[in-house]
């Protein structure tokens, strides 16, 4: 398990490094949130209130290293500070409420895309050159090359505005309180369809292409040919000999995809006004809400690390060749 130990060490180092970047980035940012809030409030706030605002948010001055140490210790205690925009809501609360939606939406989308993409890639590669292959590969190319912004906007326009089949915002009908009722879940599903489909559209292509390429490379492998020579059924050869091995490298792209889940598909969430992490981050950036930005980047990095770690573990489980090593 030396392999995993090394990885864990790497993750720890990476996390600290990321946290450090995280700490210094906002401090390079022009304009502090109070000034921004003050100016966005435009003519509404009398200039006198600026002082009150500064007091309210009590931006700690003091030596940078001291701030840094406080920050580091706060990370490990899980105290990410208080949002400026949603004062005095703790960042963890804010992220917490967005987290669920994002994990639900983007997580589902990623898994569906992964499954669907891998399946399509597998079949396309198996039936190389067939009409199915042509259709699948060409549509995969198309899907991957169209920016998410475009896809989301067009979907919103066509299905949201023009046809009115789907709601154009929210994670569920605001009239319903979250509960374990059928109506509530139906509403959640109804609201999730459009962003979900858009996300899948954007993500599936990539998985399909990777899988197809991996598969094609593997189909020439002797063990696949031998499996065919053994007279095994096509299904068995395709799934257990070719796809099983082709999937291994795809798993790492799944890791990256899963890791970015918490970034949310920012664009999709923004366009569909989905109350997830991406949207939260976007709003935080617009409002220069440092604590939220910091917290969010941290959470996302952590997520990325965790999912990478899970993939490392699953690699060891999936690929017997790695078991012996280390």
């Amino acid at each position: 398990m030396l392999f995993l130990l090394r990885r864990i060490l790497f993750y720890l180092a990476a996390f600290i490094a990321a946290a450090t970047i995280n700490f210094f980035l906002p401090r390079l940012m022009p304009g502090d949130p109070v000034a921004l809030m003050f100016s966005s409030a435009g003519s509404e706030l009398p200039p006198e209130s600026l002082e009150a605002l500064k007091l309210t948010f009590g931006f700690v001055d003091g030596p940078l290293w001291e701030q840094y140490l406080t920050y580091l210790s706060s990370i490990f205690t899980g105290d990410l500070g208080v949002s400026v925009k949603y004062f005095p809501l703790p960042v963890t609360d804010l992220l917490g409420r967005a987290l669920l939606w994002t994990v639900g939406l983007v997580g589902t989308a990623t898994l569906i895309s992964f499954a669907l993409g891998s399946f399509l890639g597998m079949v396309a590669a198996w039936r190389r050159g067939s009409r199915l292959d042509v259709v699948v590969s060409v549509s995969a190319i198309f899907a991957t090359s169209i920016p998410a912004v475009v896809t989301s906007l067009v979907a919103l326009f066509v299905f949201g505005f023009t046809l009115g089949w789907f709601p154009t915002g929210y994670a569920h009908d605001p009239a319903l309180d979250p509960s374990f009722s059928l109506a509530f879940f139906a509403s959640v599903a109804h609201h999730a369809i459009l962003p979900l489909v858009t996300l899948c559209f954007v993500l599936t292509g990539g998985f399909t292409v990777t899988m197809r390429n991996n598969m094609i490379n593997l189909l020439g492998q002797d063990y696949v040919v031998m499996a065919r020579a053994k007279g095994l059924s096509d299904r068995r050869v395709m799934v257990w000999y070719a796809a099983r091995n082709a999937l291994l490298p795809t798993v790492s792209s799944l890791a990256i995809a899963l890791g970015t889940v918490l970034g949310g598909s920012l664009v999709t969430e923004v366009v569909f006004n989905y109350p997830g992490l991406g949207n939260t981050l976007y709003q935080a950036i617009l409002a220069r809400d440092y604590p939220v930005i910091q917290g969010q980047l941290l959470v996302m990095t952590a997520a990325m690390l965790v999912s990478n770690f899970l993939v490392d573990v699953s690699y060891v489980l999936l690929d017997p060749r790695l078991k012996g090593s280390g």
Partner: protein
Amino acid sequence: MSDALLSVRNLTIDYIGAETDFRAVDDVSFDVAPGEVFGLAGESGCGKSTIAFAVSRLHGPPALIRKGSEIRLAGRDVLGLDKRALADFRWREVAMVFQSAMNSLNPVLRIEEQFYDVLRTHTGCTRKEARDRTAEMLTLVDIRPERMRDYPHQFSGGMRQRIVIAICMALDPKLVVMDEPTTALDVVVQREILQRIDELRRQRGFSVLFITHDLGLMVQFCDRIGVMLSGRMVEQGPSEAIFRTPRHDYTKRLWASFPSLKGGVLG
């Protein structure tokens, strides 16, 4: 030879290109008698593997077996088999050992599983029966049966090659095609393996279609040899004859390029 086990007639195979075709095998005919070891010799790229693949119908696009070609195994028209018959035919009638043992076992499945795959597909036996058979087969190639629960990477190259051979024997096929089965191995291991195959063949009576570019080895191992040159079969005959009295110019040249252990060259 009407009682041939494998009979290949006028076999012509093209690799289809975007514009022009590449003729890899050109009008090749030969027979393999039951229990016989038939060798296909020739330089790299002359079409040996292409023939081997055709015999077990393993080709995929862009290979094309031209019409007029004929392959018969124990009287059955191999090229005419439909999908189902083909699945049944493979391995039960013709089994195959590939060039590199390193790669012909699925790295993520246990050895046991890879045996079971074959046995279940063809005989529909239970796991228990399959395990017994696997043990039997592994013993046959000097590998301890307990190791069936290991993964391929846990074996050495020579062991893996023997495992492949064991899998080949699992269904007692009539013909075993061996496409350069020992190129990656050193001479001592190669010798061990070929000797083992030779013994098994004697015990079980299957025929072997043996492919290598090492003529010296081929003469030692095969009963009859066909020499190929860029897709054509230029000479065919008992190995003794190919060695002692080669007729075709190309065969003679081949021998002339073998240095001899005794000094000088063989030819």
